[in-house]
């Protein structure tokens, strides 16, 4: 989590404003605008399949960012993130159907509802930490899953719930080519929001709670308040991600938000890098693309002797799960700081080339 600064020698910051800026160098700003322009232009040169991958990366990235605020910045653990993601998905669909609130307003409202649910389940977080909290959120996962299966008025029961596409001024964002702009908008807003949060007193308080909670308390930081707050923020992000997911798929099923999905979110945070905002997006991209890589590897092998010997064809979903588990373990052992750290090393290498020592 150490921020390796790559400013040229002699380029000093002289004001606090310059020191806390989100994009410190001209190149990083250029890269940002270039990246945004590329994603915005992607419907021109990508097919629907690639676009759906991009949309998934964006949605998962938002939810993973929320989990990263909780796990990476505050040092709390949650194994129930997918359940909150599900609450957001159902809440948005339910709000739209029962109260006829337009979808564009449902998505943020669903985030707020999820945040409230998160605060209820985060109440133990005020007192618990570490593995006790992990176990409490595990219980939350199962209780919420049970609630989803039970509450027909909210989730549609076992049959699931159909959702409407997002419409704005009579224009329906109901295809990959258009929905990507909705996701892009929310990704930009949520990621800027998180980056700004980390520059405020509250954000720094969260980091202080993570780094040494006793010192933080001595400095006047209310531990219970900030631990619960962090849980609420994480749920807000999960809720918005879930709502976007619901209006993208236009169908939400009860079984989707299981513990494996929660573990995938944790995997995104670990693989992307704990306490790194852009890392959340990288981790989400890794987790979304990993199954695709496994799939294409299996297809490349199909028909060969290895395929027949190992029965790869029929067990692709197990192979995906195994790949997720193996990726998490491999990153923990070989690259515990995640992709964000690796990316910084790559940048440093090119910046300092050829005199890197």
């Amino acid at each position, binding site marked *: 989590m150490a921020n390796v600064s790559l400013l040229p020698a002699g380029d000093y910051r002289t004001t606090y404003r310059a020191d806390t800026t989100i994009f410190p160098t001209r190149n990083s700003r250029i890269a940002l605008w270039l990246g945004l322009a590329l994603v915005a232009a992607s419907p021109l040169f990508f097919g629907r399949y690639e676009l759906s991958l991009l949309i998934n990366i964006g949605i998962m990235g938002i939810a993973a960012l929320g989990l990263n605020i909780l796990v990476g910045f505050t040092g709390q653990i949650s194994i129930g993130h997918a359940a909150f993601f599900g609450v957001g998905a159902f809440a948005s669909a339910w709000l739209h159907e029962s109260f006829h609130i337009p979808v564009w307003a449902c998505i943020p409202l669903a985030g707020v509802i999820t945040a409230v649910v998160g605060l209820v389940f985060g109440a133990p977080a005020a007192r618990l930490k570490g593995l006790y909290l992990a176990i409490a959120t595990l219980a939350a996962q199962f209780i919420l899953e049970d609630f989803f299966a*039970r509450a027909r008025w909210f989730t549609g029961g076992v049959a699931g719930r159909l959702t409407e596409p997002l419409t704005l001024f009579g224009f329906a964002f109901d295809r990959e080519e258009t929905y990507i702009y909705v996701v892009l908008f929310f990704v930009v807003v949520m990621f800027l929001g998180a980056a700004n949060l980390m520059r405020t007193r509250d954000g720094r308080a969260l980091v202080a709670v993570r780094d040494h909670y006793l010192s933080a308390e001595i400095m006047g930081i209310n531990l219970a308040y900030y631990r619960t707050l962090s849980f609420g923020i994480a749920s807000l992000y999960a809720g918005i991600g879930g709502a976007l997911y619901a209006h993208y798929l236009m169908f939400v099923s009860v079984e989707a938000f299981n513990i494996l999905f929660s573990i995938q979110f944790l995997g995104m945070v*670990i693989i992307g890098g704990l306490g790194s905002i852009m890392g959340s997006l990288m981790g989400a991209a890794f987790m979304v693309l990993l199954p695709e890589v496994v799939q294409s590897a299996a297809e490349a092998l199909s028909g060969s002797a290895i395929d027949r010997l190992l029965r790869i064809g029929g067990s692709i979903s197990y192979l995906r*799960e195994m790949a997720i*588990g193996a990726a998490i373990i491999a990153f923990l052992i070989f690259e515990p700081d995640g992709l964000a750290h690796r990316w910084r090393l790559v940048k440093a290498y090119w910046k300092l080339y050829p005199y890197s020592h």
Partner: protein
Amino acid sequence: MDLALLFQLTLNGLIVGALYGVVAMSFVLIYKASQVVNFAQGEFLLVGAWVCWWFLTDWQLPFWAGFLFTLAFMTVFGLVLQVVVLRPLIGEPVISVIMATIGLGIFFQALMKWIFGVFAKPFPPIFPVERVSVMGLEVQTVYLVSLGISLLIMIGFAWFFTASKHGLAMRATAFDQQVAQSLGVSVPRVFAMSWAISAVVSAVAGVVVGVVNGVSSALSFYGIKVFPAVILGGLDSVLGAVLGGIIIGLLENWAHYLDSQWLNWGNMFQIAPFYALVLILLLKPYGLFGTKNIERV
């Protein structure tokens, strides 16, 4: 009121609870010795049961031989896991270690599904008599034997921790690693041993459950049911784990009774332990017998 059903469910609760107690004990063993919360405990049951099933059906071994081979396999399995995955993570933050065991859990669950399929498969019959009657109740022989095995394991643990050299070394390590090290205890070896023992004991529980219900990935749910049990008993108390297991076993069966007689909500059997878990965490997070963690600056 259906008293016969209540009685039957209570007996079920005791038997299943004793199994939870055994799994909880092996969970606590790892936690005490190496401070690792093992989210892959259920997969130990799963792997053990499948391996035993494989020895019995594909290799056509008699039960005792297959069982012994399974125990040998699980010893190696536990050792390898500890050395390859957990040892590099010593000194890393809690989240990394938890995530590693979660990763192990989904990896082995998927691997077992890949190798053995998703459908529950029954063990070949082991006991000549399927059912015996105890005080007018029909009880499966396997259940009685499993209760006996659970008690044996518990007694074995008690002996191990109070009288054997390795058990004492393990307790010393749990108490203070540095002191244990200075007295000549090899801490890495204790860690590895705790994982091996835990894997073996869990596998025994897995085989017992497999013989009763057939082997399927549902077995790994025992590893999750273990959390209410150990939190109730106190994370670092072996006695608490046993008691917690029995209480949770009774609780879920009584919740089932309540549900089937009056409430008709369905699924209370699965979910009641988790409500209990949240309550315990709110009211008494260190459980009945756990060490209260007092922090000083």
